[in-house]
């Protein structure tokens, strides 16, 4: 483990996310091996690596989409399944990964964030409506609530999915390339929201291959290339040497 990170993290007892010796493979093809990571409550963390470096695999492991072949993940000191059942993890997808011709309104999409805490039939209670309204207000989309999701611009759609995570009241937010193709207004608003989330004690993990945003927003950085190469405070980890290892395609010796 990177020692700077170890110092940073061990200062707090209960971490939001603990990943220990995580290995994931798809039919024998190793996507991620021996990845270690721990993230505190209330931080903004950049997850940096090339395409295919294992960023989305780590996200999939954290959302329970792939089962690790080895190692373990704890979120809020719970298993991934336990954390899911507590609505602790929210995933904010890349807009491109979503079928935007789907016949749902912005309101419907944000309401989906509440499903996990509703009964089997998913009938919204007044408290769910309040949560959706509040979330839409925070991302400044309340006036577009009844629009079909496909009628929004890329940035607005991104905010709609962010609102869904807010409505879910998740303590861990996983964001896939949040700054891809968004307008200036959305970018500013997202930056503000991330700071607010941090103040609320949420842990925000931002996956990106765009380095320009990292030093602006992120307290912590995780560098990933088939494994976690380094993680810790942005100033300490974000060195040219580390970046060369992340993007240079050199095979690390674990």
């Amino acid at each position: 483990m990177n020692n700077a990170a170890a110092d940073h993290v061990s200062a707090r007892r209960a971490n939001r996310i603990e990943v220990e010796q995580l290995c994931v493979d798809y039919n024998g093809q190793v996507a991620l091996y021996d990845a270690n990571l721990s993230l505190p409550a209330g931080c903004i963390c950049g997850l940096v690596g090339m395409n295919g470096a294992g960023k989305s695999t780590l996200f999939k492991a954290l959302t329970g989409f792939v089962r690790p072949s080895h190692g373990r993940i704890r979120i809020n000191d719970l298993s991934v399944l336990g954390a899911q059942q507590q609505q602790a993890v929210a995933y904010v997808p890349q807009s491109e990964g979503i079928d935007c011709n789907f016949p749902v309104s912005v309101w419907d999409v944000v309401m989906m964030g509440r499903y996990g805490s509703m009964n089997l039939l998913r009938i919204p209670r007044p408290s769910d409506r309040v949560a959706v309204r509040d979330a839409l207000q925070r991302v400044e989309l309340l006036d577009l609530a009844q629009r079909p999701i496909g009628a929004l611009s890329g940035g607005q759609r991104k905010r709609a999915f962010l609102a869904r995570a807010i409505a879910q009241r998740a303590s861990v937010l996983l964001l896939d390339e949040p700054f891809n193709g968004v307008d200036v207004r959305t970018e500013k608003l997202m930056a503000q929201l991330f700071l607010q989330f941090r103040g609320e004690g949420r842990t925000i993990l931002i996956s990106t291959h765009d380095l320009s945003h990292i030093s602006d927003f992120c307290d912590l950085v995780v560098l990933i290339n088939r494994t976690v190469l380094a993680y810790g405070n942005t100033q300490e980890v974000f060195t040219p040497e580390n970046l060369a290892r992340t993007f240079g395609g050199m095979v690390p010796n674990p």
Partner: protein
Amino acid sequence: MTWLLEPLTHAFMVRALLVSALVGCICGLLSCYMTLKGWALMGDAVSHAVMPGVVVAYALGLPFSLGAFVFGVGSVAAIGFVKQKSRIKEDTVIGLVFTGFFALGLVLVSKVRSNIDLTHILFGNVLGISSSDIQQTLLISALVVGLLLVFRRDLLLFCFDPTHARSIGINTGLLHYMLLSVLSLTAVAGLQTVGVILVVAMLVTPGATAYLLTDRFDRMTGLAMASSVLSSVLGVYISYWTDSSTAGCIVLVQTGLFLLAFLLAPRYGILNAHRSQAS
């Protein structure tokens, strides 16, 4: 009015109209999920793959829906297994598995001693439907409608964003197999009215028509069911008066409704799209 009422003096026509309306209803409901999930090819595969099940069930004296269900789900399992264990792409696997099952059905029909009429399986026989078949259809419809209503929101989310569904603790694997089971059951119901070959139309066309007419999922299901029931009933009538293939008439009416939506739909019809571009 005689054109409307005269057919109703025949018991077989009353039965045919009721069964095809019921089948239209459940196919219309399911077709929304098939269109949104992009499972048209899967629907085609399952509906063909149930054929050997129907033959085996008849030969053993079991309810044919049971045999069909086993083979329908079996084909899906086979598709999943081959896809996972080989490097072959999914659409190729689907194509080869369902034709294999269908071919098995053809051979069985020709070798197994029974009173099954191949054309009834291939093209449906709603005018000659028996009361035990009606009972099975009723049972299937109740089950399908019940499941689709209870899991309506979850299935919608599963089609829209399975990653989010998973991350809030919804069992997406269960939903996947439930939707496939519902598909198998619906295919069995559908093959009574329009037969194996055209059942995919029942599973796709109403959903596609409704999808062109609205941006609201609830309205989409309503429109799909309405257009599906309308085409089933109208198709049976037309087939009665023109003495032509019932399955053909039902599906033709469905296709006609789709074409109307394709041309005239308020926002997504091509004529209106041109007009709004011009203005």
